[in-house]
């Protein structure tokens, strides 16, 4: 392993017994600090408590509302400790601190996963392409700020793959320190845990950004391209007459090498490569001929369909029973990541011929291969040889088998299948219906089933219920033929220049970021409906990962795909797929670039000021409607520290606490007017930082409201209010009861509702207020006079 210590020495003249050298300059490791002339801000490379004051400012306004998922703590041998209602555990911790600690552990897991992913990817790419391989994510289209999050947090400008290693050293250290603070007998205060949660999220954003910078630069993914190609999505687009390789996970090198080997062997048109989860998005970014099966929830249905002749898994979001499930369809599994070995024998150093032979002849049901090049060859050759033998052997039953199986359903009184289902789907009724020969009930479950298969585990008769659901919907499944815009990567600086003003002034009513996984309460269409609603309203809709797929798997009322209707530009009315999960920092990065490019705020190690700017001016809201994982938690917490609110779907309440503002507490909603230093009431803008919505309708109303910011001009506020009121009236059939909190002057009032709202304002005793130059930071006040923090 190469040393990466920052050592540099220079000799004007070196003379020894064997040589005489002039002008020798030697660098060991990377020295990226001399490549950017912007002066350092106050907080480059922040450690755990550097930004604590900023966090506590946010947490004073957005206090945690704890929703304990477990009443006990079972993390040490003094436990289990009952923490119910104020009791403290043996270590002294109470339920609030325990919940925050669990959130921190979750966010550390999420951050470590992205950072580990980034480390693996960067090391692989350095080994293959060299440490000096340049970072370029769109220089030709004017992306000068290539790494806004890294520049902001770490305070350096990475130019080569080698530079990224140093940033990874920093973020890895932070995650280790954060995790250490969760140990028994360390941190004991819930708000300090929360501050560390924010730190984990911020660090995670850096880790993700590094991963995407590296892969965009080296693999030639679309570089800030609003017209990234439309690629095929859905089970129906896969040509099952061909040998098919299914790739699952997030870390794309094995998929890339599969595609490379196919091309080198002239097999590109003879084999299908289809993927699930973010690896598939990134495979299409590498080669638009790759296909996407669907989001994480499509995993088991596709494996059991037997369409894949070989399954290649890398890391993250892979069913941990994938090897067991694949054996049912006689599909070999190739695991490729040290983090996910699946109990398979390590064949990395075995000859390819031997591995292929064993897999094709069924002597081995899988192999662990850490070398992506070898994975490419083994997967392609195995699929080619095995496909004619397997003949797409499947375990999805025929209709007659479903009917017979349903007749064996015990119709248990307390429906364990339904009680095991996260969404309480009416499985027992569907089985009863099927037993009578009608499969409609089972078929109706197909779109809303998240594929967890807990129903099967719970079934007292061991019936393969999920298979019945899929089998009853086979026609529907095979007709899944959609398009998705391949991930475009970063937002161009020129796009930021164009929309920065309208966003900050409020004339573009907001940026809605639909991100995260597929644990939807009522199916993926809800995400698409939210995207469509806000795109129609001329918000900027951004998306990534499984949410981006769900948007693609939807047709509007005219039968059109949303990616074909709405442009991929970061502009009003766009639906912007940035890419896989690790592309999420491009969304945060866009907000950061607005502060940097449009408002000319210093970026370098200047986190607090930039976050203050974003929180008060950039009307962005994240929606993770189907958030599942610890990664989703850490992604959300990265947004929180920037002051960007996040809405989750109803399952998101299981994240153990919300960060909620109180609009009824007037004292919480004051900012400094940077022009005068006076404190000004600005209303609950934005009202919450982390919020669970019960329904998609509530999410839409809340998202529109959370886009309001203290800096909105009267025209901007008028537009935002109009959207909020319109959605409220449409879904709740009544005017909002808090309009008076958002109106500063009468010029804020939407023209068509002016008289109606004026009556409400009069009833509420509303008084006109000024529109300040808002900041939460006394040091940002322009006057020379020192302002106290309180």
């Amino acid at each position, binding site marked *: 392993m190469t040393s990466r210590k920052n050592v540099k020495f220079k000799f004007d003249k070196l003379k020894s017994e064997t040589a005489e050298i002039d002008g020798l300059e030697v660098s060991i490791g990377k020295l990226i600090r001399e490549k950017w002339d912007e002066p350092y801000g106050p907080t480059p490379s922040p450690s755990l408590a550097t930004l604590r004051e900023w966090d506590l400012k946010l947490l004073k306004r957005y206090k945690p509302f704890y929703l304990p998922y477990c009443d006990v703590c079972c993390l040490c041998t003094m436990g289990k400790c009952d923490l119910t209602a104020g009791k403290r555990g043996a270590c002294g911790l109470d339920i*609030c601190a325990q919940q925050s600690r669990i959130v921190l552990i979750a966010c550390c897991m999420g951050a470590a996963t992205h950072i580990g992913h980034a480390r693996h990817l960067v090391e692989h790419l350095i080994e293959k392409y060299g440490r000096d391989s340049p970072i370029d994510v769109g220089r030709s289209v004017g992306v000068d700020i290539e790494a806004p999050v890294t520049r902001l947090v770490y305070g350096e400008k990475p130019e080569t793959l080698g530079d990224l290693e140093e940033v990874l050293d920093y973020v890895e250290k932070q995650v280790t320190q954060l995790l250490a603070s969760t140990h028994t007998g360390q941190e004991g205060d819930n708000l300090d845990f929360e501050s560390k949660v924010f730190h984990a999220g911020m660090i995670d954003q850096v880790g993700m950004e590094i991963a995407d910078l590296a892969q965009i630069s080296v693999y030639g993914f679309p570089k800030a391209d609003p017209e990234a190609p439309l690629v095929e999505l859905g089970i129906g687009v896969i040509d099952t007459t061909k040998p098919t390789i299914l790739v699952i996970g997030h870390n794309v090198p094995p998929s890339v090498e599969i595609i490379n080997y196919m091309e080198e062997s002239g097999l590109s048109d003879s084999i299908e490569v289809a993927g699930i989860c973010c690896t598939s998005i990134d495979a299409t970014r590498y080669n638009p001929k790759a296909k996407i099966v669907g989001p994480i929830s499509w995993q088991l249905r596709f494996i059991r369909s037997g369409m894949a002749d070989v399954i290649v898994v890398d890391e993250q979001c892979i069913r941990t029973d994938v090897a067991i499930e694949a054996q049912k369809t006689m599909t070999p599994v190739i695991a490729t990541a040290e983090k996910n070995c699946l109990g398979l024998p390590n064949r990395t150093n075995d000859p390819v011929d031997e591995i292929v032979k064993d897999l094709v002849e069924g002597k081995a049901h899988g192999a662990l291969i850490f070398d992506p090049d070898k994975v490419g060859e083994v997967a392609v050759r195995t699929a080619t040889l095995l496909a004619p033998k397997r003949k797409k052997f499947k375990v999805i039953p025929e209709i007659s088998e479903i009917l017979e199986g349903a007749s064996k359903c015990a119709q248990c009184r307390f429906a364990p299948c339904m009680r095991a289902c996260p969404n309480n789907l009416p499985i027992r009724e569907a089985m009863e219906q099927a037993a009578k020969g009608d499969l409609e009930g089972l078929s109706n479950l197909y779109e809303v089933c998240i594929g967890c298969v807990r129903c099967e585990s719970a079934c007292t008769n061991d019936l393969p219920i999920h298979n019945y659901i899929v089998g009853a919907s086979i026609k529907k499944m095979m007709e899944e033929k959609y398009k998705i815009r391949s991930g475009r990567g970063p937002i161009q600086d020129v796009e930021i220049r164009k929309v920065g003003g309208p966003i900050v002034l409020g004339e573009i009513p907001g940026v809605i970021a639909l991100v995260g996984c597929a644990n939807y309460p009522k199916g993926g269409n809800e995400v698409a409906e939210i995207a469509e609603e806000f795109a129609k309203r001329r918000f900027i809709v951004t998306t990534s990962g499984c949410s981006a797929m769900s948007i693609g798997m939807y047709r509007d009322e005219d039968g059109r795909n949303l990616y074909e209707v709405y442009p991929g530009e970061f502009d009003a009315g766009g639906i912007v797929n940035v890419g896989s999960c690790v592309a999420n920092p491009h969304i945060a990065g866009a907000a950061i670039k607005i502060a940097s490019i449009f408002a000319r705020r210093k970026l370098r190690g200047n986190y607090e000021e930039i976050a203050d700017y974003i929180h008060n001016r950039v009307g962005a809201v994240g929606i993770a409607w189907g958030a599942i994982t610890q990664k989703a938690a850490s992604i959300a917490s990265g947004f929180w520290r920037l002051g960007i609110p996040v809405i989750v779907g109803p399952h998101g309440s299981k994240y153990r606490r919300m960060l909620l503002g109180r609009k009824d507490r007037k004292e919480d909603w004051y900012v400094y007017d940077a022009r005068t230093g006076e404190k000004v009431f600005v209303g609950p803008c934005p009202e919450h930082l982390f919020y669970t919505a019960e329904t998609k309708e*509530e999410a839409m109303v809340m998202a529109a409201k959370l886009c309001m910011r203290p800096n909105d001009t009267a025209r901007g506020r008028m537009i935002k209010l109009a959207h909020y009121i319109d959605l409220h009236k449409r879904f709740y059939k009544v005017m909002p009861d808090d309009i008076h909190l958002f109106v500063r002057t009468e010029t804020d009032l939407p023209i068509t509702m002016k008289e109606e709202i004026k009556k409400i304002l009069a009833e509420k005793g509303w008084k006109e207020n000024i529109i300040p130059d808002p900041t939460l930071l006394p040091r940002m006040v322009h006057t020379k006079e020192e302002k106290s923090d309180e």
Partner: protein
Amino acid sequence: MSNEPWQIGEIAGPKKALIITKPSVVVGMVKKAKRTLMVVGHQTAEIDLGEENAIDYMIKIADRFKIPIVATANAVSEFVERNYPISWMSAMDIGNRLQDPEWEGLDGKGQYDLVLFIGIPYYMEWTILSGLKHTAPNLKTISLDRYYHPHASWSFSNIKIDEWVTYLKTIIGQIEEKA
């Protein structure tokens, strides 16, 4: 089955809800409470009970008890359509306020001491009730859903719809008797 959470994995902690075996328990608790609130989630509108919707039952209970309703999410529209006066607040917001002893309530007269919950998705209501169990020790909560909610103070067990309807009708009848 009597005190098992409806969703199998939602195992509660040491303190679990008492089971409402007789509807009179609900009536008695409301009568005893000083300030009662009813929180009605959007799923209430989705439960078809034959001639009437579960929303209609809640209106009858709230009306006869003279207790205010907070409708969450788009349940609001159901009450508006029925022209029944309610307040609205999201489930998270009302949960958050209920744990604050300083909250002035919907009418400015102070915090509530009893809250009836119904119709929020099971797992979401579960987490809110858990939050209140831990952080609002003086608040009593009753789940009127037909599923056992372990984090409420009182809850029905897991019962079939017809049993549930009978319970709700009995509650309504008993309020009228005692009125």
